[in-house]
């Protein structure tokens, strides 16, 4: 398997959330994202990790969470790609979805936050069928262009 630029692999413990956030914040800046773009990306990964711990692993603390991170530099510009993998088999991916926010109730925000903060969100089963794979991508937005005359 080809390796990514930066990888983290940790046990499914909530105390590692802040460690992943610290690394990711620094990394996203290295890849050219501005602070106001970095913050939502960090939040998204925190939410994705929390969901793996809570829903995927039912709060077991000795399971693996793998995060692979690469810089993006393609037709859509510069950005960051973050791939999270767990070892939860038999997850029904169609059940991973956000809810209607009009109804105010505790919980049910994590998946909504993923889609709201990231440019692409892709849940799939891992190629080796050992668990769930979540691919997130966020591109840097150069400062908004001035309104064009005549357009």
């Amino acid at each position, binding site marked *: 398997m080809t390796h990514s630029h930066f990888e983290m692999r940790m046990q499914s413990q*909530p*105390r590692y*959330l*802040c460690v992943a*956030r610290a690394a990711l914040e620094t990394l996203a800046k290295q890849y050219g994202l501005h602070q106001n773009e970095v*913050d*939502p990306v960090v*939040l998204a990964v*925190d*939410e994705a990790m*929390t969901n793996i*711990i*809570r829903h995927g692993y039912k709060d077991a603390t000795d399971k693996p969470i793998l995060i692979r991170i690469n810089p993006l530099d393609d037709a859509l510009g510069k950005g960051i790609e973050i791939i999270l993998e767990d070892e939860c088999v038999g997850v029904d991916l169609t059940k991973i979805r956000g809810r209607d*926010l009009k109804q*105010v*109730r*505790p*919980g049910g*925000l*994590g998946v*909504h*936050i993923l889609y*709201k*903060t990231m440019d692409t969100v892709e849940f799939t089963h891992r190629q080796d069928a050992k668990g769930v794979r979540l691919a997130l991508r966020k591109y840097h937005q150069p400062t908004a262009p001035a309104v064009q005359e005549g357009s």
Partner: protein
Amino acid sequence: MAEEPTHTTETIDDGLLICFGGEIDYSNSPDLRHVIHQALARKPDRLIIDLTGVPYMDSSGVAVLVEALQGQTKNKKQLILSNLQTKVQGIFEIARLDTVFQITDDIEQAKQIPPAPPRK
């Protein structure tokens, strides 16, 4: 646990003021819930939750605050949040809760807000 989570609860004229400190995520939101439950049990007319010292909060923290709001509303009491830092304000906006909660810039303002008619 995230870095140095702290809290203090103090009595004010018509209720309670809780000040949280530290990043709030799934490692310590259960503690936050516990502290808030204890406060709700005292049935304060006004519960102010000050977040001056909270630079970061994820949805597990937000869920606890929504729960608290529901508890106060059910009892026809008031919940006011104060001093949301940038990132915390951010998640409230993403979750479209920035208009659901009463949010003030500081604790003084939170104390001045007149008791609102209870939500239906």
